[in-house]
């Protein structure tokens, strides 16, 4: 932690960055922190409560963050995938940001705690299972000690997806229509997503209206399917959409299922190399095209 604070202080003092975006411990647990003065760096923390994917603040839609000047961003290994996503899609210039990587051994599913607690099978964020990047890549500075593998969660996301897959079609339909019926179309899932970069979302187009804006069954299905498909092969599995959903729709299950399909069909897994294009932004002559009749 001291290492992080000292580095942040130095970067601000030297004028290498104008703002450090990291985490702080606040009244209701850990939350994003924006430090612009060297002395403010003492408020920075990093522990298992630092769930937030702060890469969302590099999203080009965030004018009010960009205004602050050059950003020094603290990232975990998984967050580096979102940085790679922005670089891959030309939404970010690497030199415009200083990346401070922190080694991470997993985060908590429920992070609104006064202080971090030890990770267990019950409290670990399920997406940490099988983590392949406890040490972030792409970074300018790498901090912290090497971390052990996060514990395996009591129920993995794969097991939950498999449980759904095992259901007959009608049952799955009932499950998802039930889930999507809860949607109030606040678009929190989109707003918090580091990869939802469209300046004008298709959901906001009215001439023509592609997606009905009313939160009725039809409109909600259109929206949720469009959101998921537009992130197929782009989603970095940070789970922020599900975490921010005020009505508790398990969006991670949709995202993970799509990852499985993309892996199967295109042999592609979202990674930290910005040079490898995602299938949605790539064209190859040997792409399967059997769906074109």
């Amino acid at each position, binding site marked *: 932690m001291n290492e992080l604070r000292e580095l942040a202080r130095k970067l601000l003092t030297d004028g290498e960055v104008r703002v450090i975006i990291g985490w702080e411990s606040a009244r209701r647990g850990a939350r994003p922190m*924006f430090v*612009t*003065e060297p002395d403010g760096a003492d408020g920075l923390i990093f522990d298992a409560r630092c769930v937030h994917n702060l890469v969302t603040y590099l999203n080009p839609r965030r004018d*009010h*963050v960009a205004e602050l000047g050059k950003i020094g961003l603290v990232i975990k290994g998984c967050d580096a995938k979102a940085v790679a996503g922005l670089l891959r899609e030309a939404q970010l210039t690497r030199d415009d940001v200083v990346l401070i990587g922190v080694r991470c051994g997993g985060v908590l599913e429920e992070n609104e705690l006064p202080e971090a607690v030890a990770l267990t099978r019950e409290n670990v964020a399920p997406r940490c299972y099988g983590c392949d990047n406890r040490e972030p890549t792409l970074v300018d500075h790498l901090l912290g000690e090497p971390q052990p593998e996060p514990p395996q969660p009591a129920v993995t996301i794969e097991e939950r997806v498999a449980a759904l897959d095992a259901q007959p079609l009608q049952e799955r339909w*009932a*499950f998802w229509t039930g889930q999507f019926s809860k949607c109030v179309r606040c678009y929190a899932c989109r707003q918090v997503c580091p990869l939802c970069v469209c300046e004008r979302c298709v959901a906001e187009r009215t001439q023509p209206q592609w997606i009905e804006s009313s939160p009725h069954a039809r409109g909600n299905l259109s929206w949720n399917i469009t959101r998921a498909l537009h992130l197929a092969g782009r989603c970095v599995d940070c789970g922020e959409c599900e975490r921010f959903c*005020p009505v508790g729709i398990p969006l991670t299950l949709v995202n993970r299922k799509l990852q499985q399909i993309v892996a199967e069909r295109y042999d592609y897994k979202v990674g930290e190399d910005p040079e490898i294009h995602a299938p949605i932004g790539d064209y190859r002559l040997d792409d399967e095209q059997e769906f074109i009749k």
Partner: protein
Amino acid sequence: MTDVTDTGAAAPQRYFISEADLRALAADLLGAGTDVIAPVSVDACQSPSALATAACLRPGVAPVDVEYKAIGDAAELDLGRDLPVLSLKQFFLPDHEALCRWHQRGLEVTVEEVPTTFAPRVVLAAKPCDSAALAVVDAVMNWDYKDELWNGRREASTIFNLACPVIDESCFCTAVGSAPDDVKGADGLLTPVEGGYVVETTTEKGRALVAAHPARFEAAGDPAMVGRIRQTQAERAGARSRVAANLEIDAESVRDWIATHFEDPLLASLAIRCNGCGACSSVCPTCHCFDIVDEEEGVGRGTRRRCWDTCQAPTFTLHASGHNPRDDQHVRYRQRINHKFSIYPLKFGEVLCTGCGRCTRVCHAGQDLVEILGAIDIAARRPGEAAAAAGAAAPGDVEAAS
């Protein structure tokens, strides 16, 4: 507290109802064809399948939510006093509703109106912050334009609140003129006591409901009422002091300070960590802005609907010209605070917030209204301390540099 000296013997508006009778009352109403809206424990997975339920469950996340629902059976009524995820607003201003339907054949267009009168319905065990919000929003719904759909639903509804034990550290109803035992916007209050509830009726509608079901209520003449009323007083006073400890502000000073400090760095840089997602507006009992959309539902026919909208979305103020007067999140967030705590109170005399705390609980980016109001209150009342407090408040230390 009202009526603290009242022993109940001569209080025609106070009754006792046992829990069994409260459920029986719900059953009576349902039997008579009256809709009953009440908190219900909902399977968060919303699927009958046990396997799909397992798929939905996440470690560390409660498998059930409490939601206001139109109940089908009195047994569903959840008297656990948890806070429903969405407020009662949805039954007065639904997240989407038809305003009219159109049919076009050639050049001929016919418009089908929607009904604006509603069958009588009863809300049981409403949260006091939710009923109070309805009364606050009544003002704007009856300002230059009378909103027939809102008013129709308000007139059709009889609401009994259930005194709230205070949910957590994000509750602040007493700081904005409400209370955990408020009857504002409601027709009566239930306060839990041993074996049931003390019922107070505060409006004609409330009294009419009791009068229509005399068998379910024990009148105040019962000698046991003295003890019960004492119990409610302790319960209500305890809840009030617990919530007051979360936040105390002078709402009038806050109102006036905001009105005169539009460009103040504190007010102009509140939203640095805000994602602009609008979840706060969705769960808010007082946010009432809506968008009107025409949705085609086939050739030559469609429905005009209104849907919840939010001032946190850039499109909320996007002009047809392409200009957007609220073009960044700081400005949009300031609007939210300004509208709730200054514009609305100056126009209608009431704060557009009842302190339910849902916006704070739902914000995983950490926008914390308790903290923000505390900082504004200090700026308004003790300007000397404002700079120090602001550092710890919502904008982090950003305003120091801006």
